């Protein structure tokens, strides 16, 4: 975890949400930019922006679990799938309103998180990874083969929905919903990270036995972080289902779980900003790759069947690159640039 706050002398200073005035100003400007985005962005760009927002919500959840609490999970996509399918089933069978669906998706996913968390309390590291991976594969299998409930490969279509009389078929209105929820998720995570609970999470990550000796209730905090993480994953999955208007088992595969872990590695482990950066980076990456390889594959027909292979290779190379050369991720790069300019033109 990168050191982000220098010169804090009191706890009050350390617990501020914004580390400095300039951070407050730049964040406000950023939010204003996002609010104004639908005014000049096209439909496609808005869709991509919504996907970034959804990935942000979900990756912040994974960051609570893996980045802060140190519980490694390769099953994040399974929780997203549970959230998404909850929405599809409640929305289509019971015609519940959007707001209720959203909460329900989170709650059902966090119940699933609880179910995974309780047996996982005794597991650590590698064993936990393999258990969550097993959970991911089982969920994938059930979604694919429980045809009477999930319609198998065809998936479930999700029809138009509305929120407070707003028709959310429109991309820009979808974007606003995602934006509000993403900002809420960010504030929530930041707040959680800076509270006693968040510090307890970090203590569990850094050394669980030492944390227990200081008086952190291990079981309670591990379960709490699992629940928080899967709640946010459920919300993310729910929004994903709404934006795509159809949910199929192929959306939330093991690959997606790996991608989410890659996001927190690329962005920077255990930091909120890092999570957001990683989510945006990994969501925009396929779009960039499409921009580069789209024309190439139309020029060379041989390429078109190899696109998947190239994409997957680039993903792997990015993961390897960040782990080998930039273990603190994009956030680490950002902090380094900032620290370089702080005393400029002096060396230090």
């Amino acid at each position: 975890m990168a050191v982000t706050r220098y010169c804090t002398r009191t706890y009050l200073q350390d617990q501020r949400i914004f580390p400095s005035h300039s951070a407050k100003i730049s964040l406000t400007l950023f939010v204003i930019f996002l609010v104004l985005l639908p005014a000049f962005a096209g439909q496609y760009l808005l869709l991509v922006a919504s996907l970034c927002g959804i990935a942000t919500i979900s990756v912040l959840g994974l960051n609570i679990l893996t980045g802060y609490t140190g519980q490694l999970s390769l099953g994040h996509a399974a929780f997203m799938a549970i959230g998404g399918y909850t929405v599809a089933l409640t929305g289509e069978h019971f015609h519940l309103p959007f707001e209720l669906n959203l909460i329900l998706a989170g709650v059902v996913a966090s119940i699933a998180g609880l179910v995974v968390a309780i047996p996982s309390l005794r597991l650590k590291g590698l064993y936990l990874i393999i258990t969550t991976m097993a959970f991911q594969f089982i969920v994938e299998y059930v979604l694919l083969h429980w045809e009477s409930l999930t319609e198998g490969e065809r998936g479930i279509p999700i029809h138009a929905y509305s929120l407070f009389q707003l028709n959310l078929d429109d991309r820009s209105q979808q974007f606003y919903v995602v934006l509000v929820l993403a900002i809420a998720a960010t504030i929530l995570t930041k707040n959680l990270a800076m509270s006693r609970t968040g510090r307890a999470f970090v203590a569990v990550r850094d050394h669980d036995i030492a944390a227990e000796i200081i008086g952190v209730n291990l079981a309670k905090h591990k379960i709490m972080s699992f629940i928080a993480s899967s709640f946010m994953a459920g919300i993310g999955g729910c929004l994903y289902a709404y934006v795509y208007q159809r949910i199929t088992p192929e959306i939330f595969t093991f690959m997606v779980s790996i991608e989410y872990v890659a996001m927190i590695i690329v962005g920077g482990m255990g930091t909120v900003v890092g999570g957001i950066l990683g989510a945006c980076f990994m969501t925009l990456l396929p779009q960039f790759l499409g921009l580069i390889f789209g024309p190439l594959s139309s020029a060379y027909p041989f390429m078109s069947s190899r696109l998947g292979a190239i994409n997957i290779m680039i993903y792997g190379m990015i993961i390897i690159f960040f782990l080998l050369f930039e273990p603190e991720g994009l956030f680490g790069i950002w902090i380094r640039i900032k620290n370089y300019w702080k005393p400029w033109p002096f060396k230090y």
Partner: protein
Amino acid sequence: MDAMQVKFLAMGIINGFAVGAIYALLALGFVVIFKATDIFNFAQGEIMMFGAYMAMLMSNALVGKLGIVAAFTLAFLISSFTTALLASICEMTVVRPMLGKPVLSIIMITLGLAFVLRGGVEFIWGPEELPFYKPFRDAPLLVQGVPIAEVRLYTIVTSLILMGVFFLFFKYSNKGLGMRATAEDQETAFLMGINVKRIFTMSWAIAGIVGAVGGIFLGSTVGNLVPYLSHMGLRALPAVILGGMNSITGAIIGGLILGVCENLAGTYIAPHIGGGDIKEITSYVIVLVVMMIRPHGLFGTKEIERV
């Protein structure tokens, strides 16, 4: 149970052993690397897949010049060698800098490696199914009246021989002793004059060889190759968990148990639940149950930690 059902069960168990032998080879690859370097290699399935594709390339090239058996044998050897080489290169370039890093970083780097290998294989050979030449007859052999496909018998026999060779290697050879010493304590082994770096590379090379052998037999059993084959690597993970991370015999037994369970589940449970191939997730269900009862694997020992 009448005679027919007994035969059916015997067939299921022997076929299960054949699948289990492949799992055991994969698990052996995992455990050899984990024991020597403390690195858990998620790319083992991809290494196996590379071995299978290499063997296909070689046997396709050689089958015109030599007989099919000779071509297959030569392809087998060349593929084992190249796969071992590839695994060593991966170790030296990508994995070695990660020594002593947190578990998640190590796992993610091997997953990244897996992506690169899978993408590379798919880029060269394409995502389509490719036929795999094999010298085995399609007609099943009858053992005590139980029909067994020839390839499955060869799989079991070759795997057992390979496992025996490695068992003797670890037990009696100088290098094997060095590997066991490194596994026990890397620093002490280093101080005793063992070339720890070479041991690391060697463990990956061994994993490459067993991976290639597993891949070739898997390809022969299935009859064709797709990049999706690498998922077998993940399905073999529960074998390692069953056997305990640091026990070679455990991994082999775990692999065999897993193969048999999977095959029997496919025969006896699948018809009752309907839809889908229950074999795909049997191993994951087993691992969940084992993890709940014994968090350190069936034969694994509890690690003692210091604060």
